[in-house]
């Protein structure tokens, strides 16, 4: 079934780079911007999107029951209390991995496409079955990476696979950017990363301890509309995703001294 719904896979190859955090924050940010959004937890092995969204205790049914046809789609969807534009489709039991096929993923996503404008799929790490199932159901993708050699290498592999599966556009989010370390050349720079991956950069997310605090609370940073640096990054990514032109600023190229750069970073509304 063809709808205009944007079905976006959020993937990385390497684990722990920030896929789930991005999915949760982007979901909330899009919902706040008035877009009807579903987030689908495709990480059946280590599901934790529900946790990050603070919805764990409200799950009754999961994607598993929907596929087995023991419940309806809207029975399984968990609507976010504060942001009713956002719904979560929870992952089922890890044993689902034994029988889940790309066409099952496709079925769930088809059902979601009828109801939502955006479907964000939180992909498991790796390039094995879990990834392949999720890719099969996706139209476009966001590749998340960190400014680290191994994360970039894995992202590159994933981009190659997305290309062979005809997923496009594929855009890049560079997470956990530390301007100070980039300035002192202890970390790959934004240019180093985009140079290798050759993808349009959808946004940068600054390293921010508030991300961890909010994760533990089950309240994504974007929920409060707060002003922490990472929260701004996430909502800018959501706006760019909808086609708004918000200039990207490379934090490591601002001003001259490190201090100058950091100061700017705190003040600037961009990036």
């Amino acid at each position, binding site marked *: 079934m063809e709808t205009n719904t944007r079905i976006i896979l959020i993937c990385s190859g390497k684990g722990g780079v920030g896929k789930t955090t991005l999915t949760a924050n982007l979901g909330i940010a899009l919902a706040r911007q008035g877009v009807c959004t579903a987030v689908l937890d495709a990480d059946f092995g280590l599901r934790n999107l529900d946790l990050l969204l603070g919805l764990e205790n409200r799950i009754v049914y999961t994607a598993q029951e929907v596929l087995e046809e023991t419940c309806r789609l809207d029975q399984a969807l968990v609507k976010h209390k504060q942001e009713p534009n956002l719904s979560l489709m929870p992952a089922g039991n890890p044993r689902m991995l034994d029988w889940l096929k790309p066409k099952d993923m496709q079925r769930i996503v088809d059902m979601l496409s009828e109801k939502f404008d955006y479907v964000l799929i939180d992909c498991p790490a790796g*390039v094995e079955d879990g990834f*392949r199932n999720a890719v099969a159901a996706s139209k476009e993708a966001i590749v998340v990476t960190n400014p680290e050699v191994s994360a970039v*290498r*894995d992202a*590159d*592999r994933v*981009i*190659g*696979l997305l*290309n*062979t*599966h005809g997923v496009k556009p594929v855009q890049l989010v560079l997470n956990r950017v530390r301007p100070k370390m980039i300035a002192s050349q202890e970390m790959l720079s934004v240019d180093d990363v985009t140079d*290798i991956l*050759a993808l349009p950069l959808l946004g940068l997310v600054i390293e921010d301890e508030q991300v961890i605090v909010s994760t533990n609370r089950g309240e994504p940073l974007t929920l409060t509309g707060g002003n922490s640096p990472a929260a701004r990054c996430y909502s800018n990514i959501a706006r760019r995703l909808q086609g708004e032109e918000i200039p990207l600023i490379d934090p490591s190229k601002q001003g001259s001294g490190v201090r100058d750069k950091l100061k700017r970073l705190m003040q600037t509304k961009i990036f």
Partner: protein
Amino acid sequence: MGSINSGENITTIKLPLTRSSDWRISLPGKLNKVNSEGVLVDCQDWQLGCTELKQLRSYIEQAGLKLISIRSNIPETIVSAAALGHQSTLVLQKSVLVENSSPKSEEAKSNDSPKLLFHEGTLRSGEHLSAEGDVLLLGDVNPGATISAGGNVMIWGRLRGTAQAGKLGDKKAKIIALELRPVQLRIANAIARGPEEKPAQGLTEEALLESGKIIIQPARVNPFMFDRT
């Protein structure tokens, strides 16, 4: 770098040409006759996507065998094979369309004009491109990707992965790239690590063998013209 050539334990199976019969029909019978553990499948002119290659792989696994490597003269098949994590080789066969020619005349034909494999697009981590003759790549070779050729390797882009020229022993083979920053270079039997320092911007360089060692030097004026002696 997942190299294969362990030699003795691998059987090569050729799929029938597209227009002669469907490979799904003849493959099980062929697999039953295999008595090695691993198989190399030459897919010839079949354009196979990931789903079909998976099907092919499950036939092989059902027969209790292991798919070691894929060969084909269709780039798409090779790309799908790489996507599934298989070692794969693209074979550019000039004689595909000449069916009834004897093997001898085929050989003569391919000897007097060197084959060139042309590929457009960046090779990303985990992808391999391999050619029997020369290879010309329009794109980058990223870290973690490999390009290899029986003849010269020419990269209209940046080489940041691994490149091998003259893989069958041709000591005259060269590796040329608009930016030469490889992880590793191989020419014939020689191996060298890439240079540590960044090359000068905008300088096309070539790597070649000189008295048994790989050296890197600025390429000649027209780096993509080869004099074949």
